[in-house]
């Protein structure tokens, strides 16, 4: 049976999050942006964002900010996810789905290896 969520659970989450704040994160400043205008939403951006949040939590990753943005004028490539790691060039992933998004979190954000074949750059080269 699914566990009922209460405000007491939230209090526990807060305590755990405060504990994590004191642990230095080598991923501080990393930013994941998901396009969430009408085009992004229609193409499935919302489950993509939820998969990213879920994967970050599952893998206990701290220091990564997830944000959403409006339309950047590339509607046919939605859902679009941008990953910015300090000191590296921003990588734009196109036509994402929740599974791909989870892999980006693991391979790019955690292991530091962008998945080139899913990027806008590789689509433009084709």
């Amino acid at each position, binding site marked *: 049976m*699914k566990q*009922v*969520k*209460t*405000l007491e*659970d*939230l*209090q526990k*989450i*807060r305590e*755990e*999050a*405060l504990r994590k*704040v004191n642990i230095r994160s080598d991923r501080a400043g990393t930013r994941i942006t998901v396009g*969430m*205008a*009408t*085009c992004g*939403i*229609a193409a499935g951006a*919302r*489950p993509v*964002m*939820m998969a990213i*949040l*879920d994967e*970050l*939590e599952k893998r206990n*990753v701290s220091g990564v*900010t*997830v*944000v*959403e*943005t*409006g*339309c*950047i*004028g590339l*509607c046919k490539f939605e859902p679009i996810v941008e990953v910015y790691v300090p000191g590296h060039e921003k990588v734009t992933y196109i036509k994402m789905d929740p599974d791909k998004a989870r892999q980006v979190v693991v391979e790019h954000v955690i292991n530091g290896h962008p998945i080139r074949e899913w990027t806008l750059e590789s689509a433009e080269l084709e």
Partner: protein
Amino acid sequence: MALYVLDLAQNSVVAGARNIVIDIAADVKADELLIRITDDGKGMGPDLLEKVMDPFFTSRKERRFGLGIPFFKDLVEQCGGTLTIESKEGEGTTIEGRLKLSSVDLIPLGDMGSTIVSLLVSNPELNLTYRFSFDDYSFTFDAVQIREVLQGVSITEPSVLNWIKEYVNQGSIEILPNINTSRKEGAKKDYEAG
């Protein structure tokens, strides 16, 4: 339905709203489903208000069309309902759809939890209230209350956002008539227990 709500509420965010209230109210006796989004964004003057139903109009610069409101208008009308938009420049906007709950074209409520999370993730200071009611059952999510509990921790912490998603979904009941009865009882019990 949750995706339509997200799209409309995103307009409020773009309009600079600090306070957004989302109301979803199902009334079986009145055969009505109310969906209302109220914001205190920059609002619209009469000229702009006239154009918002036109899919080939947008106030944004990245593309030449704006589909959010026209999509919602189509849905409301398909479900035998009416759409009204009230807006005042500098004060805010209220967009309200009243749909027939018995309409065969009515779509499921969907994942409201993810919609609320999507709105908060980039706008952690947003005063977002989501009120859901189904006859005598009601549920309220208030971001201000959540932030009070979270003191010192951002509402955008992934574990917090995942909790919000489940909390909101547990409080919302499916609105389609054929599948609401058992979920309604279950959600009511969960909410009372929580």
